[in-house]
């Protein structure tokens, strides 16, 4: 499903050079939910942006369903759905128009697209506001439209960058529920977070990233067993201290 091989990313400008990601490798299998954990500036967003083809790797490669991100970026984008906390919606389009637009860009035939929009309305409870312009929607309603937009093309892999950041309890709960549903449909999820409890409740596996390097790639259960630390925050800090 997803293979990240010796991936590095260096940002360079006239003033400074920043090594955001340093030779990382990991894999995600079909139906797997993996959490990418790290503090701010650890390299989570850069890694995810390379996977979704927004950024180009400096070295290394990434394959999504066999497509390489730099060689076949359009095909890679067909396989993935991407959502971040800052992802915006077109204020002057309605929810239906938004879904229609992205469905067309994914080359979904019209009759199939209508069917999928109807399904999304049911799944994300959009019927009340689907024909209202997005700037008239509440944060929670926008988030539901965004989730429908992310999945309208039924991607095999969902990449979610801090999806619950800035959301209230209800909003965060909706995202957690969404990730659980995704797993039941056999889709894979890679999501970044710095909330340990969120990772524990959802992930089959966690990847801890710090200063661009992977420090751990395992289940939380195994990490607990190896360190003997039960409390999640302490466990996380222990791994950073020990393996840095």
């Amino acid at each position, binding site marked *: 499903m997803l293979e990240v091989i010796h991936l590095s990313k260096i*940002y360079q*400008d006239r003033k400074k050079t920043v090594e955001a990601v340093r030779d990382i490798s990991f894999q995600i299998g079909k139906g797997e939910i993996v959490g990418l954990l790290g503090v701010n500036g650890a390299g989570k967003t850069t890694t995810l*942006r390379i996977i*979704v*083809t*927004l*950024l*180009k790797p400096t070295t290394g490669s990434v394959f999504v369903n066999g497509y390489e991100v730099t060689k076949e*970026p*359009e*095909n890679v*984008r*067909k396989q*993935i759905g*991407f959502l*971040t906390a*800052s*992802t*915006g*919606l*077109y*204020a*002057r*389009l309605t929810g239906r*128009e938004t879904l229609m*637009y*992205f469905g*067309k*860009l*994914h*080359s979904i035939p019209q009759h199939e697209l209508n069917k999928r929009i109807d399904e999304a309305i049911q799944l994300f409870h959009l019927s009340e506001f689907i024909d209202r*312009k997005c700037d008239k929607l509440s944060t929670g309603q926008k988030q539901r439209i965004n989730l429908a*937009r992310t999945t309208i093309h039924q991607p095999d892999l969902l990449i979610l960058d801090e999806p619950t950041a800035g959301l209230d309890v209800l909003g965060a709960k909706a995202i957690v529920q969404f990730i659980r549903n995704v797993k039941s449909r056999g889709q894979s999820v890679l999501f970044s977070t710095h909330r340990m409890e969120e990772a524990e409740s959802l992930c089959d596996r966690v990847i801890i990233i710090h200063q661009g390097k992977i420090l751990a790639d395992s289940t939380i259960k195994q990490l607990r067993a190896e360190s003997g630390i039960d409390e999640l925050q302490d466990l996380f800090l222990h791994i950073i201290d020990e393996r840095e």
Partner: protein
Amino acid sequence: MFDLKKGLTIFQKEILDILRDKRTIISMIVVPILIIPILTYGVTWFAKIQMKKMMEKEAVVILQNAQNFPALRDALQKEEKIRIIENILDTTAAIAMLRDETAQAIIIIPQQWDSLKFTLGQIPYDTLQILSLKTKEEAQIVVNRLNQKIEELRKEYSKQLLLRAGMDAEILKPFEISQVDVSTPTEIGGKLLGMMLPYMLILLTLSGAMYPAMDLTAGEKERGTMETLLISPASRLDIVFGKFLTILTVSIVTALLTIFSIFFTSSGLFLTISEEIRTKLNLHIDFTIVATVLVLLIPLSATFSALLMTLSLLAKSYKEAQSYVSPMVIVTIFPAMMSMFPGVKTNLAFSLIPILNVSLLVKDAFTGTLEPLYLITAFFSSIVVAAIAMRICVVTFNKESVLFRI
């Protein structure tokens, strides 16, 4: 890989999106259709009212030493809406009255002025002084009237002096001069439109492209929707194509609507001018002019659209984009104004220079002096410039440092 279908999907969405924006509707439709006639008629109406007020207002003229030149006093007294004051003999005090607008002009007749000399057939060889403030428009209208009156008196005296010397007054005009303008009314109208329209056309094409260029690039970045689009299967080229086509369309529509609005507004104003001037002037736009304007407008608009899009892409926010694109107006104004400069004519070198070629050739189309060779060179040079601008835009759009401003 370019996919026309995806490019057109983006174009359709952008057009729908931008047409729902009040700012676009205002700048693209409301401004050209309504504001131009409202402003033009409004300004003309206001100017007329002001002029009428000034003409109706009584003017005060201080006449010093009036007793020396009774004929002038009599002539001015007969004038309507002119009141003469004779008792202010101190010039400083009189000038103060000009400043506080209690008087509009001072006529100083010299102390030694002797009107009797005229009657004796002698020439006084002296100077009448008219004092006024050039900065006051009202005063200048009064001065013009005074000049006219004094000139009539002077002519009358010249005539009498010549008669006394036994000569015919006609000696002052040994022959007549007759100037005949052989320009047709269409040529005169064409010259008028050809001076103004190229400048308007170029600036409006630029301003029409400005708002959508900023909104569709920096605006999208600011609102967080650019990322969503970039992770769709549309290629960077599809996205550039869709957005570029939208900016181009809005720019052309704005320019055309404005030109038609200017044309109809001036035609309306034209009907209010006197019959005599109207027979000498024909505001005429024919197929050749429309075709020339379109042939030049499309590549010009494409160049502006691509350049504005590239500049706006470099910005993180709409506000930042505004500061990047505004210097383009200054860069554009000078070549756009060339059609107004006397003596500047189209040649091969000028026909290759972007903006300047449009300015001069549109003028040529209106004046009926269009050279097909220059039109062809201008068209192809504009196409090359537009293609370069578009290439720069695509390269910029592929730079992650620009899209994400890392």
